C-alpha cells in the first residue's frame, strides 16, 4: 500500500481550499528543504539550494469540486463547479464540504426531463437539511466541496478520486526525499487553483522567476473504450510531454528528460495530448519566456471519482523526477 498516496488522496482539497493539504505536505517535506514558505495565494514553495540555476518543479494541490452559491427554501444547497466537473459524472455522487458536511448531488426536477440536457445548474446538493436555515448553518456560502471516492489498490492499479493531481504531489514529495543531491537550485512548488485556470502557477512564476520549469501532472490515456485516440497507456511508464493545448514542451526539457530516462533505464512514453493543459502552460509564458515541460502520470477517467493509474508508471515518474533533481538541466 502506498500509504503516502492514500493519505494525499483522502485529504479533501478542492480549488481555493488547499489549506489542509498544504499543511500536510509541509510537514512531509520540511526535513529535506533549505526553506519552505507559502505565498499570499497559498502556494507552498520548497527551496533546495544549488548552483544558482533555478529549476522549478510544480505539482498542483487542488482537485475539482463544487462551491456553495445559494440555499433553497427546502434546505437545498445549490452549487457551481470548481474546475471541469461533468454533470453526468457528478449526478448522485457523494460530496463533502470543507467543514465536514456531507451530501448527495441530486436532480432539481424530474430526472427523465433533466437527463436530456443535463447541466450542473439543474442539480443541487441534498445535505438532509429541513429548511434554508438549517442548510445555512451546515454549509456557508462560498464553502468548497470535494467528491468522494475511496482509495483502493488492486494489483498494479490504484483507483481513487483526486489522483489528479495527488499522484503528482506524491511523485514530487518522494523524489525530493529520495534525491541524494541536487544540481540546480530546486524550487518545488505545490500550487493552488490549477483547475480554475493555472492561477497559482501564474502567481508563483512571477515571484520565483525560474530559468526552467517542469510540471508534474496527470495525462489522459488512449487505452480504454471511452478514451481519446492517443498513444499514452497505463503501464507504459512515465509520460514525457511533447504538447498539450497550453504548451509545446521546450526541446531542452524534452530531450533532457528523455536522456535521463535512457541513462537511468527508466521506462517512458511520449505524450501528445490534444486538449487540456498544466501549470507549465502558464509558467512558460512568464518573464521573458521559461523553457518548460511536463512529466506526466497516465491516468484513466480523469475528473471522475474513479480515476485509475498504474503504480509502475508512478514509480517511473518518481525515478525520473529524482534523476532531474539530482542531475539538473
Amino acid at each position, binding site marked *: 500500500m502506498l500509504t503516502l498516496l492514500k493519505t494525499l488522496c483522502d485529504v479533501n482539497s478542492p480549488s481555493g481550499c488547499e489549506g489542509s493539504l498544504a499543511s500536510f505536505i509541509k510537514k512531509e517535506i520540511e526535513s529535506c528543504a533549505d526553506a519552505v514558505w507559502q505565498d*499570499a495565494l497559498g502556494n507552498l514553495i520548497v527551496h533546495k539550494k544549488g548552483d544558482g540555476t533555478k529549476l522549478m518543479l510544480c505539482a498542483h494541490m487542488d482537485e475539482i469540486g463544487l462551491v456553495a452559491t445559494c440555499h433553497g427554501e427546502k434546505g437545498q444547497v445549490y452549487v457551481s463547479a470548481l474546475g471541469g466537473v461533468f454533470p453526468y459524472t457528478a449526478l448522485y455522487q457523494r460530496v463533502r464540504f470543507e467543514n465536514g458536511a456531507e451530501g448527495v448531488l441530486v436532480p432539481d426536477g424530474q430526472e427523465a426531463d433533466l437527463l436530456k440536457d443535463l447541466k450542473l445548474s439543474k442539480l443541487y446538493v441534498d445535505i438532509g437539511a429541513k429548511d434554508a436555515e438549517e442548510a445555512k448553518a451546515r454549509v456557508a456560502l462560498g464553502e468548497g466541496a470535494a467528491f468522494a471516492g475511496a482509495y483502493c489498490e488492486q494489483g498494479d492499479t490504484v483507483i481513487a478520486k483526486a489522483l489528479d493531481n495527488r499522484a503528482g504531489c506524491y511523485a514530487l514529495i518522494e523524489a525530493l526525499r529520495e534525491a541524494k543531491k541536487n544540481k540546480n537550485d530546486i524550487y518545488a512548488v505545490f500550487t493552488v487553483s490549477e483547475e480554475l485556470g493555472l492561477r497559482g502557477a501564474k502567481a508563483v512564476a512571477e515571484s520565483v522567476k525560474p530559468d526552467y520549469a517542469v510540471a508534474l501532472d496527470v495525462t489522459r490515456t488512449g487505452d480504454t473504450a471511452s478514451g481519446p485516440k492517443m498513444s499514452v497507456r497505463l503501464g507504459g511508464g512515465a509520460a514525457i510531454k511533447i504538447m498539450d493545448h497550453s504548451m509545446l514542451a521546450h526541446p531542452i526539457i524534452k530531450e533532457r528528460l528523455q536522456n535521463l530516462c535512457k541513462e537511468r533505464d527508466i521506462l517512458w512514453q511520449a505524450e501528445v495530448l490534444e486538449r487540456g493543459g498544466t501549470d507549465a502552460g502558464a509558467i512558460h509564458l512568464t518573464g521573458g519566456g521559461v523553457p518548460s515541460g511536463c512529466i506526466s502520470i497516465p491516468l484513466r477517467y480523469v475528473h471522475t471519482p474513479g480515476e485509475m493509474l498504474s503504480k509502475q508508471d508512478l514509480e517511473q515518474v518518481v525515478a525520473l523526477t529524482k534523476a532531474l533533481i539530482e542531475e539538473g538541466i
Partner: protein
Amino acid sequence: MYLSELVKLAGVSGNENAVRSFIKERIAPFCERIEIDSMGNLMAFKKGTNNCGKTLMLCAHMDEVGLIVSRITEEGFLKFKTVGGIDPRVLISKRVSVGAAGLPGVIGRKAIHLLTPEERKKAPKVKELYVDIGAKDKADAESKVAVGDYIAFESAFVPFGDGLVKAKALDDRLGCAILLELAQESCPWDVCFAFTVQEEVGLRGARLCARRIKPDMALVIEGTTCSDLPETEERAVSTRLGKGAAISLIDGATSYNRKIAQQLYQLAAKHDIPVQFKQTATGGNDAGIIHVSAGGIVTAAVSVPARYIHSPVSVISLKDYQAAKELTRLWIQEVLHADFA
C-alpha cells in the same frame, strides 16, 4: 457629487482620457504623488500614518462598455463593433454620442414589419445594426466621423424611486467616485488609489498596476450584476438591490481569500452597514488578474449591485453605494488588524 459628474463622461475602454483628467485634477490635492503608466492607468499614492511600509491598493476601473466605428456605409450610416460585453438586444433605438466631439446619434435596425418570420424569432446581431448620425451620404459622414472613433451611450443620471439612480457607466464610475471621496481622508497603511483602464476588454490595465505597486493587499470596488428580478430563480440571483454592499466569495476569475471576505462582512455587520455576499459564481473583475500578479496578492472585492449592467440604463441604489463606501472607509482603517494568513 462625483458620481453624477463621472457617469456623464465618455470613457469606452481604451479611451479613458476624460475620466482620467477628471480624477487626476480632483485627487491631486490629497495625494503625495500621481503616476500614469504607459497604458493610461492612474495611480495616486497617499502616505500612511502608521509608517509600517505596507500598501493597500484600492482599485476601480475608469472604462465603460461601448462601441467603436468599424465602417461608414455609402448611405452615411456607421457600422460598429462592441467594446466589452454588450447584449445586442439592448442596443436598438438607443441614443449614443460619437467621437471626441460627442456627435449625437441613434442606433437603428431594419423595422419589425420588414423582418422575415425567422429573423423575428432571433436576437439581433451587431452586424445588423447601425448608428444613424443624420448624415446625408458617406462623404458627409466622413467629414465628421472616422473609422476607429469611439461611440458611448448617451443616458442621463436620473434619481428615481426609493433612492435609486439610473445612468450609463455606473460600472465602474461608482468605484471611481468612492475612491475619490475616500482619498480625502487619512489612512494608516500607505494607500494607492489605482484607477485602471481596459477592464471591460479583459482586465488589461490592472495587471500593470498590480505589478508596479506590489501591494500587500488589494481591494477592488466594482459594480456587479443584480438579477433580483421577476421570473428569476433564487439560485440565479447574484445580488439584491438595496440590500447593501456585495462581498465576493468566488466568481469566474477569482476564488477570493475567504478569511478576508468574512472579515469584511463582519466589519460591516458590526457597524450596521447593510451587506450581502454575492451569490452565483460567474463574472469577473480586476481582482482576477491582480490576485495572480507579482507572486500572488491577497485580494477582495466589494461591489454595488447594478441592475441592467452593461446597458445605457443601469440602476443602482444609493444606499448600496453608501454602504460600499462606508465599508471601504472602515477597511482602510481596519486593514491594520486584518488576519491574512
